[in-house]
């Protein structure tokens, strides 16, 4: 893509986009620094149990039922949320782009078959499928990531397919064919770079969505018990909502802010990357 840097600059000048970027940067910083700010890890039972926020300055957000520091849990949780969000979006992107590109470029029976498959994935209740996969295979980070991405790729596939369908009739594609360029090269070097804008925008939504689904799974008790995620904290906190509401509220706020940041960035990207809207004033 040309002018990526210019896009980022424009994004930074977009007020809500900037706010989103700053929020996301803070969350990334949290996840990166978790290791050295809290070297003992999020599971260490470092304080008295169920300490409310603001009581002990060592634990500004209090401790949970195990006496674990909630700040530490939020920091480590950011890691999990970002990992699941980014990893599952990446998988969905790869699968979606490949399926969409093949379907759109080759058309015909291949397209028909792939689109029926896509339909099937969009027809089956998505969250249910994720639950089933995690429930059956077992709640671990890779499984959760897989379960989220397997229902997310069809959106990308449709997007890419539509764009490829449109672009493959263009002259530049035709001339590539004439000079004998291979199908793969045409698709990946010539066509795909031309339909990146909507994909990039959708990706920010995918990441946000994946973070919500991970938290929802953890809320149902289908989180990876070996990693501290915001959903885990929510699930624990839910049991003591009436007595220690902060255990629920703190991760809920973290979750909402992260999703908010990603959506703000997505909206801003949409404004920046969508030339159609840009031209009209």
């Amino acid at each position, binding site marked *: 893509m040309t002018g990526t840097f210019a896009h980022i600059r424009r994004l930074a000048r977009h007020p809500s986009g900037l706010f989103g970027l700053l929020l996301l940067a803070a969350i990334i910083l949290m996840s990166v620094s978790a290791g050295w700010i809290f070297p003992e890890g999020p599971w260490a039972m470092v304080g008295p149990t169920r300490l409310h926020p603001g009581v002990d300055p060592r634990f500004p957000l209090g401790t949970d039922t195990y006496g674990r520091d909630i700040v530490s849990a939020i920091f480590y949780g950011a890691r999990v949320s970002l990992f699941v969000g980014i990893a599952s979006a990446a998988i969905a992107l790869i699968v979606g782009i490949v399926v969409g590109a093949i379907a759109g470029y080759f058309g015909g029976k291949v397209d028909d078959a792939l689109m029926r498959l896509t*339909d099937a994935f969009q*027809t089956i209740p998505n*969250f249910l499928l994720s639950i*089933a996969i995690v429930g059956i295979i077992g709640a671990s980070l890779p499984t959760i990531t897989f379960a989220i991405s397997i229902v997310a790729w069809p959106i990308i596939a449709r997007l890419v397919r539509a764009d490829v369908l449109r672009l493959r009739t263009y002259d530049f594609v035709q001339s590539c064919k004439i000079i004998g360029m291979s199908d793969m090269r045409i698709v990946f070097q010539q066509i795909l770079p031309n339909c990146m804008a909507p994909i990039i925008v959708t990706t920010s939504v995918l990441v946000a969505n994946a973070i919500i689904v991970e938290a929802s799974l953890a809320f149902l008790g289908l989180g990876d018990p070996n990693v501290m995620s915001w959903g885990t904290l929510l699930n624990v906190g839910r049991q003591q909502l009436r007595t220690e509401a902060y255990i629920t509220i703190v991760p809920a706020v973290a*979750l909402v802010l992260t999703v908010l940041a990603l959506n703000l960035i997505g909206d801003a990207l949409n404004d920046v990357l969508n030339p159609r809207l840009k031209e009209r004033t």
Partner: protein
Amino acid sequence: MTQTSGPITGNGTKKAGPFAALSSPLGRYILRRLVQALLVMVLVMVGSFFLMKLAPGDFVDVLAGTRDLTAEQTAELRARYGLDQPLVIQLVRYMGLLATFDFGYSPINAAPVTDVILARLPVTAILVVASVSLSMVIGTLFGIAAARNAGKPVDLGISIFMLLLYATPSFIVAIMLILVFGLKLGLMPIAGYESVGMGYTGWQHIWDVTRHLTLPVVALCTFYIAIYGRIGRASMLEVMRLDFVRTARAKGISEGRVFYVHALRNALLPLITMAGLQVSSLVGGAVLIETVFGLPGMGRTAYDAVLQRDTNLLLGVIFTSSLAVVTVNFVIDMLYMVLDPRVNLK
């Protein structure tokens, strides 16, 4: 399904209204859609079947665990439900039954799957219909209000509100609703879809159900209100920039008419597509809401069916919800043809 196999727009040269006689193009289109839908359903069912069957453990393991069954008893159960047969034979048997709309028996509920689904369907149907229509109406109204006041504080306020709704997962909304309206204020019942065993009838019953379902519907709605609001606003602003709106204004008709007659109808089209997507995601999303609000709906039933390896029941639920999704998408396509005269059959 709308996107691929749906109608395409084009500059029709034929002089024909959307429903100009149920001539062969429409007939052929419907037939093609039906074949596609059937294919998709078969894919969904076979896929789900294998997902359940390849999972470690079957429902006899679950029963054995909860009932302290002995090895002989479990073997007897497996034979009784044909679980000792090869997978392919199980699949063929199941698909054979399904072809006659027989969903089989749910060993976990000791009842035919059809009975279980029929018992669950009303709750979920009310939830889905109520939240789709409510979120669509409220969301669109917000979207319109924001678009009409684009750039003003009202727009900013609505946009921020929509973003917050959009970013807050439904289960968090549900917890908060229970906390505030159920416990702190004590205004609303917290669980179930009616006051069980109270024998309410007529209006009393309807009022009772309404009270019970208000919070769940609101919790299911918020996210979609935000979506409709955002799409509505964007779509409205987009349409308001189009030439025909300027033409309408140049005609000297009232701004209200420009907005509500000319722009709105065009702006609504993407919202209708959204409704189709919403229906398909609601059954899944309902798992959380039905869990939190203790509603005996399809979502929670499906979830329990997965945990208990009640393959027949899960497949029955998936079949029902997929059928609903396919039907809704079909209806939406038809609706499109009515609402947008440009839509033409492929």
